[in-house]
């Protein structure tokens, strides 16, 4: 939008007949100007909201400088990353392994649980709009709650520990997978299904041979992608006591053991990078290099 206005000013200098054009094709110019005014108003509103937000959260340049000054001290205290002792290092490593196990188990379980619901929520499988709308809203509600909140709820149900975290991942991924799967199923080509039905296949057979082969690579790609993102999520789920490395991370930060904190962060970064690498290799092997 800005682009248009600036090119107009330069046009005006170069083409003196622009004024005449403006008179002759008044409606075309007015349309533009109205859009422009709207755009500027919107931008002004967004900026003022931003400024108000900064004011509300108590932003002052002085505070930023002070805070980052303190943060600098923290960062300095973090160097070099040091687990403290071998025992600690082993405990942290086990935390990372636990985190990975939670992420993997949670993702796989969620995928299997979500698959039937993906079909239920797909318009081209379940013609009954009441069912697929109900399933979709259920999935929406589940997705509306953050994994950390689910973890908090599951801690109340099965107690502290990684199991609560696994259940939290299963629950929140169930909502996400259900939606993504149903979209993949709806995007599937209907011709194979028609072919199977025309040659006498049953409804179930048309799904098994007409749709599953089409969506399986897409689904696997999504599952892998979620495994990646879940390794990130599980590292923090320990903040509410639901297992994994996050528990140690919170503890070391709260007790100002900065060298151990940075060791854990380093460990997490390396693990996440390794998982990203493996999973992107696997994804390319399964579905080629197309985007998920």
């Amino acid at each position: 939008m800005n682009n248009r206005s600036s090119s107009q000013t330069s046009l005006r200098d170069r083409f003196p007949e622009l004024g005449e054009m403006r008179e002759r094709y008044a409606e075309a110019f007015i349309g533009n100007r109205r859009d422009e005014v709207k755009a500027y108003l919107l931008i002004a509103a967004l900026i003022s909201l931003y400024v108000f937000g900064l004011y509300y959260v108590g932003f002052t340049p002085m505070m930023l400088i002070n805070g980052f000054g303190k943060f600098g001290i923290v960062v300095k205290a973090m160097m070099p990353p040091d687990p403290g002792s071998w025992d600690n290092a082993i405990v942290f490593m086990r935390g990372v392994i636990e985190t990975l196990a939670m992420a993997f188990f949670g993702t796989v379980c969620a995928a299997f649980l979500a698959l039937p619901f993906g079909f239920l929520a797909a318009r081209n499988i379940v013609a009954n709009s009441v069912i697929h709308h109900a399933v979709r809203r259920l999935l929406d509600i589940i997705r509306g709650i953050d994994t950390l909140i689910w973890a908090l709820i599951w801690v109340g149900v099965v107690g502290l520990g990684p199991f609560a975290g696994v259940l939290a991942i299963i629950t929140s991924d169930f909502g996400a997978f259900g939606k993504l799967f149903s979209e993949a199923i709806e995007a599937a080509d209907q011709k194979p299904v028609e072919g199977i039905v025309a040659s006498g296949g049953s409804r179930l057979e048309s799904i098994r041979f007409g749709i599953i082969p089409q969506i399986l690579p897409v689904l696997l790609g999504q599952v892998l992608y979620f495994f990646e993102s879940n390794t990130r999520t599980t590292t923090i789920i320990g903040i509410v006591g639901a297992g994994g490395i996050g528990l140690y991370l919170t503890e070391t930060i709260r007790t100002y053991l900065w060298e151990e904190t940075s060791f854990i962060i380093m460990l997490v970064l390396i693990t996440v990078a390794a998982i990203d690498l493996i999973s992107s290799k696997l994804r390319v092997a399964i579905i080629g290099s197309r985007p998920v």
Partner: protein
Amino acid sequence: MATTIQPLPDEQNARLQSQYAMTLAQKRRQMLLGSIIVVLLVFIAAFGAEVDPHKFVTNFWKFPRYFFDMTPHIGLSTFYEDVTEWYWGLGKWLKLMAETLLIAYVGTVTGAVIAFVLAFFASNSMAVSGWSKFAARRFLEFCRTVPDIVFALMFVVSFGLGPFPGVLALAIHTSGALGKLFSEVIDNIDMKPVEGLRASGASWSQQVRFAAVPQVLSNFTSYTLLRFEINVRGAAVMGFVGAGGIGQLLIEYVRKFYYVDVGAVLIIIILTVMMIDYGTEKIRHRLIAKEGMS
């Protein structure tokens, strides 16, 4: 004209059949092997994550019970009174929810602005120099790999409790996540306008401003809106570590076993998230429609 399909000679047929059977068997073997590996990994993972079916079965009744406890008794005749009593803290909760949205908004915008600048340096097509490209990329990578709540944990220590550390944490994580997406968008632009400007002697900033930005702006907006949705969810839990927003109240209610209040606050969060998702989706669809027209 009738056509008859000539059956293949027996010898050729047999060869084809055996080849088909072999390919099929190989595919089945691969599938079987893959499944066995996955199942094995699942069992190992289950062991590592202390999955306990017994505990799950004996405690599962608590899960619906939890939601049952969250909903108060609402009588038909006293519907209004019951609901108003349930939402006794509505004013306070809505204010905190608004604070959450504000945290998400300021964090998203700040992060998007940082990402906007860095993405050009990190892209293949518009990078200034190899060195700055490398630096920008590593910085963005770091920002997006460390989860926002970990940043919040550390910022709470150095900035004190309150919404500001939350904003900062979201901004940093957002800049990393958006920076990557933005630079991918920039890599995919049509280079002809850029070359045209470069040929007519435009500086780097002019090339960015007049050749690249007009091409990427709608995509950037779309990604930023998507990130805003994610950040609303993120801001709702920032309070768990003391970084402002409604999460602070939520975790307090959970820890004190105020089930009914937990339910009320959760409903507010879910409704807000759904409304934001719906709104941003509408805007994004309009952006895409505009894109298609021009």
